[in-house]
Structures are given as C-alpha cells and as structure tokens.
C-alpha cells in the first residue's frame, strides 16, 4: 500500500493543481471538456470550495453556499497562490448529471449523487446495472479529465504556455 499520510509520496499536490486547473479552464474556456471518442463533458464548480494551506503555518480556507467562486475571498486566495484542495463539482454528459465533492490529494469522490435512474429500468436488477454504469462513468470522467490536465502539465514548455495563462488567471 502507498503511504498517503501527507500526500507527498503520492503527488497529492498534483491533485490540487488538477482541481485548480479545472476551475481555470471552466472560467477561461467555458467548462466544456472534450474527451477521447468524441465525448464532451461539462464541468462547473458548485457551492463548496476548500483551499489548501500552502504550509503548516497557513490557514486552510473553506467557502460554502451561494457562488463561492465569485467571492472576493476566493479571488484573494488565488492571488495568494493557494491551490484548491476540495470542491463541489457539477459534471454533465448528455442528459446525465453527477454532483460530487472531489478531494484533490486523493482523487476521492465524496457526497456523490448519481444521475436519475434511466426511465427504462423496470426492476431492481435494472437499476443496479444502470447505477453501476453511472458509478463507473463518473470514475472514468474524472480519470480522463485528469489525463487531459497531465498532457498539458507534463509539456516541457508548460510554464511558458498554459502555466503562464494559469498564473495570469490566478492573479486577475
């Protein structure tokens, strides 16, 4: 088993960069993310944000309810270089919509709400099959979004390209 006490051995900070990148892309590109196979998912940040403390001496900041991404506190946290640690996400693909709180350092989804059961479900077995597909789809979407982020993040010129845009957005 991997040691995950502080996330340093498992790149927990990279999960925080990923979640902050989702916010950046949502605000600058409109929240539609192309995935392999011609799929497109919509992502939006909802009513819960928690910023990581940059060090043990700093305060962790949590914003709840309303539109926390629009608050002065959130902008200040970004300007101070804080990464997102947790956020409530709305995820949509076609007619299906999930909500979840993503814990970035572990990429764990908590407080998940699956899409409504498909209308054609007639039995408990049908509902189980439908929900199983939706649970896996949520996992797959998060993994594919993370892979999209990594393709940008691992570019040798990242700091001069996307990283530059990201820094400007955080400072804006």
């Amino acid at each position, binding site marked *: 088993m991997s040691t995950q006490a502080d996330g340093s051995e498992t790149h927990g900070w990279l999960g925080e*960069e990923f979640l902050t990148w989702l916010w950046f892309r949502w605000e600058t590109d409109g929240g539609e993310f192309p995935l392999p196979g011609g799929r497109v998912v919509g992502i939006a940040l909802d009513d819960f944000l928690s910023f990581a403390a940059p060090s043990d001496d700093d305060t962790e900041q949590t914003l709840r309810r309303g539109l926390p991404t629009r608050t002065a506190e959130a902008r200040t946290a970004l300007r101070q*270089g804080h990464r997102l640690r947790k956020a409530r996400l709305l995820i949509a693909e076609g007619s299906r919509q999930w909500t979840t709180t993503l814990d970035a350092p572990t990429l764990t989804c908590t407080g998940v709400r699956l899409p409504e059961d498909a209308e054609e479900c007639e039995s408990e077995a049908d509902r189980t*099959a439908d929900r199983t597909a939706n649970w896996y789809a949520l996992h797959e979407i998060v993994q594919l979004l993370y892979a999209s982020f990594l393709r940008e993040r*691992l570019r040798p010129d990242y700091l001069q390209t996307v990283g530059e845009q990201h820094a400007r957005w955080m400072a804006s």
Partner: protein
Amino acid sequence: MAAIRKSGGVVVYYWDGDLPAPADAAFAQALAGRRFRTIEHATSEEVSVGWVTPADPTGDSFDAEDLEGGAGTWLRFRIDKKVLPKKWLQIHRDAAEKSRGKKLSARERRELKDDLSDKLLPRVLPTIQLVDALLFHDRRTLLLFATSKGAREAFAKLFFESFALPLDRANPLRCGLRAALGREADAALERLVPVRWPRGDDAPQPPRRRAAGEAAAAATEEVDA
C-alpha cells in the same frame, strides 16, 4: 434485493496480478474462504469481518447471480462489533462506589468490568455495518463505497486475505501512471515538482499592467520537500 446505492462516497482501488474471473468457481471459493462468521452469541468483545452477498447477509452462500451488478461485480462485506456498553459499565461502577462510599481501585474496576462482561456480553447484540464495492475485473479497478479509515483498512485486509493480492488506492501519481501517457511522460510525472504560484506582491499583474514574459518568470517550480 434492493438496488445498489446511488449516492455517497467512493474510494478507488487498483490491483496488479491475476484475480479469478467473478464467474469462475475460484472467485466464489475465495469469498467463501473468508465468509462472514457471526459473533451474535460471543461472550467477549469481538469484531468479525467477512464476505456476504447483497442477497444473503449471513455469508452462507455465494451464488454467482447474487454478485451481478451489470458491468461490474457487486461485492459486499460485513463488519460486526460486539462491545460492552460503556454507559452500563459506568452505571454499575457508580453504584458500587456509592455503596462503598469511596472510589474503586484500578484492580476493583477491572474485576467489575470482567464480571459485567461475563453477565452482559451474551445479551448484547453486535453492531452491524454492511459495505458495498463494485469490482470491474477487466479494468483491474474496484470502487469501495466507504471512505472511513476503519472500513478501508478492513476491506484491503479482507481482499488480500481472500485473493492474495494487495490493493493500491488511487492517488494522483498512480492515476497518472495508469493514464497511458507514454514512457517519457511517466518519467516526467515521477520527477514532477509542484508549481509555486506567485503569492501576494509577487503575483503577476493583469496583462495591461505587466508584460506577459514577466508572469511566466514568476511561475517558478520548487522542489517538493
């Protein structure tokens, strides 16, 4: 049998190595080998962890159809705990101290607890926790519907004892290495260090107030301590 849950928290695990296909008899045998065993009539404080199925909470049967979960295999394990109720112990201790007019010594407290355990535990029912998981055999992926440390540890131990395979919890590094980005990207990922975004006065100004190149210079990387 009710349908699988549609809300809650989920922890993702992966495994390497060969796991019997869920349709194979070896899979059911592995579950049966670590089936749940009741502690309903136990006379001491105990914890019992073992496999059951969504259709049979006793652990007596592992029929393949009871594990069907559509594209995945629906696993369920059960954790029963029997403990002496603390409030009953406190009531008896208070009564003993009141009748004596003084506090009990450590040895007397221990004896009182042992005596109460013998009398009460056979009458105490264990608490029951049923935890579900979805196993996707072809993708070597498992979704556990519990996020507490106790349930996670119990599950990982039970899985290892059943299939002799350790589970790896998903994390940003593991997920990145599974994303099939290529060998160069994998090597870069392992070497990657956090971006130290500009803070406060170091922050790049909006484009009108500061040249683009300066913002790039401000976004420097630091070595992960």
